[in-house]
């Protein structure tokens, strides 16, 4: 994901000239945090009437924190453009919590809401907001196939799962036992990845999926599940962690002395996973650029509200495949 949207880049430079200089940092001069690339730049013009944007996320987990970093950065960038970005915390990935928080945001009369699309169940509340002329930009997951949300940003989960499946097949030469540790059987994103990976693995006659368990995104439960899998299947070749807590699985593999013997495939290069990539316990980690998932929708919403053309309906991110060999290059900020 190195291609920063070049067209808007140009446009913003032009507007920068027309605006009163010195009051705002032009988009082109923004210094992104180490190792991050900005997929979109804000136009260089301050709003006259003031804009309120809500950026929602479940903040209490590493992935959420990475998204929050992007949202906070967007807040900083837009502060001198007369935009108030509120980063709002939702207490869980439960659809009902999201509906309530979205309702509260609608009541608070935000001009735009950037949100994680948790599940299809958000369709109605999203449509309601759109009907009230609020920009609804979703990231990471689609809030329902026929929702009226104007734009979506992120990596397709099923594609990510398929990518993971391919990586596994490659890593173990298409034969051996594989275990899957999934966050929750009832989170759609996790299920898309799990099923995506399975669709690839099940095509290989040499591969046998020996176990699928939930770890509720917790590293301790991943640790226990991994230990159980190793015990039950002495010939285990690979473990796929679909969601949170891969560090637990990595630690369990290390503690069992199976580093390298058992390949670990997981998602999201974060502080949690980086050391295990470095130590080669994690063989492949598929990153979905959470920083931009937090950052880009906010900037896009600002630009749209300022009269720029709306962003694409769907903005796919490429899967960034991090391996022990390339991780330091791709994510220097983590080392």
């Amino acid at each position, binding site marked *: 994901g190195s291609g920063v949207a070049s067209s808007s880049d140009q446009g913003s430079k032009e507007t920068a000239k027309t605006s009163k200089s010195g009051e705002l940092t032009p988009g082109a001069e923004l210094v992104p945090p180490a190792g991050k690339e900005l997929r979109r730049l804000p136009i260089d013009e301050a709003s006259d009437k003031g804009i309120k944007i809500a950026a929602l996320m*479940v*903040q*209490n987990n590493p992935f959420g924190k990475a998204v929050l970093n992007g949202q906070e950065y967007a807040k900083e960038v837009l502060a001198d453009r007369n935009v108030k970005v*509120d*980063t*709002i*915390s*939702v*207490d*869980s990935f*439960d*659809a*009902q919590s999201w*509906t*309530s*928080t979205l*309702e*509260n*945001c*609608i*009541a*608070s*009369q935000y001009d735009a809401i950037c949100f994680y699309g948790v*599940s*299809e*169940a*958000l*369709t*109605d*509340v999203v449509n*309601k907001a759109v009907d009230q002329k609020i920009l609804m930009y979703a990231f990471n997951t689609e809030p*329902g196939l026929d929702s009226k949300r104007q734009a979506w940003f992120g990596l397709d989960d099923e594609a990510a799962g398929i990518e993971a499946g391919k990586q596994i097949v490659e890593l173990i030469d298409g034969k051996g036992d594989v275990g899957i540790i999934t966050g*929750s*059987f*009832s*989170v*759609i994103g996790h*299920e898309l990845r799990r099923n995506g990976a399975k669709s690839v693995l099940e095509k290989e006659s040499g591969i046998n999926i020996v176990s699928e368990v939930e770890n509720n995104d917790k590293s301790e439960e991943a640790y226990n599940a991994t230990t159980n899998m190793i015990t039950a299947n002495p010939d285990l070749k690979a473990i796929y962690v679909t969601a949170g807590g891969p560090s637990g699985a990595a630690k369990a593999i290390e503690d069992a002395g199976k580093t390298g013997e058992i390949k670990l495939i997981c998602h999201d290069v974060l502080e949690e996973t980086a050391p295990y990539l470095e130590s080669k316990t994690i063989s492949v980690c598929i990153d979905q650029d959470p920083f931009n998932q937090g950052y880009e929708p906010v900037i896009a919403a600002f630009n749209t509200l300022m009269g720029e053309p709306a962003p694409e309906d769907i903005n796919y991110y490429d899967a960034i495949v991090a391996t022990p060999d390339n991780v330091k290059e791709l994510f220097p900020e983590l080392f």
Partner: protein
Amino acid sequence: MKEETTENGTQKGEGTLKKFFSRQENVVAIVLVLLCIMMSIVRTETFLTTANVFNVLRQSSLYIILAMGMALIIITGGIDLSIGSIIAVSACLGAYLAQRINNVPVIIVLCVVLLTGCLCGLINGGLVALAGIPPFIVTLGMLSVGKGVALLVSNGAPIRYEKTWLSVFGGNYIGPVPISVLVMAVISVIMIVFANCTITGRNIYAIGNSERAAKLSGIAVERTVILVYVLMGLLASICGILLMGQMNSADPTFGSGYEMDTIAAAVIGGVSMSGGEGRLSGTIVGALLMSLLRNMFVLLAISGYWQTIILGCVIVLSVAIDCIGKKRKSR
């Protein structure tokens, strides 16, 4: 003489005030009002709008409905951890039916959802009252089993179904009033009347005071306890319908974690965990407090980490005022 009268007068005034403050629910209600006043000052433009008020009410409506059922269960000396699963399993079954079978009459879907809730409640109540298994274990088991069944039915993903008049219950409005708020209001009135003015309602309290004494007074203890659990199941399935309507789909994660919030609402509202006392009006206040706090957090854009800290403190403080007073008096 004159002095005495004044003294008596003051005492009487004090007495009424004291009596008012001696109920935990009243203290919590005052906390609630103070928070509202604070919010109206700090967020004048957004807080006291019709939209936001009904928004808070709508969000609290599920908690209120569930907390009243939970309060009755706690009053009998029990607990129900399975409400979230009952919501999920009944909603998923209903949506499955609506989605799979073409032209199934909506009324049948409605019945299936409600009956599923009642059945779960019946199993809970039966195991508690007839087999004598501790409610904590029974409903913990039901929590697990219900979630599993919901997952099986839904295959782990939300089940979307054709929009029918069922969806009216969840998302629609009559004027500015969300239908779920109306449903909540109707159920609240029924439940309060049931608990206070019917023989079965009073028998529930009697059982919570002393099961043996209730038995010796000719109360059908087992039947009443079962009824309370069935009622809880029914209320949970009504919430399932509201959620289904609101989301236009049924999700196996529906209601997960609700048990703690509803128990908290009941206890904050003055229901004693040891059973036998507490009022449904207090429970409503407790549930409103929880929802108001959540709404406040969003309106004030408080960071996620501080939300949990503030939530914890307010819960403890709102109950503490009353408890410390009582504790001091008892010595």
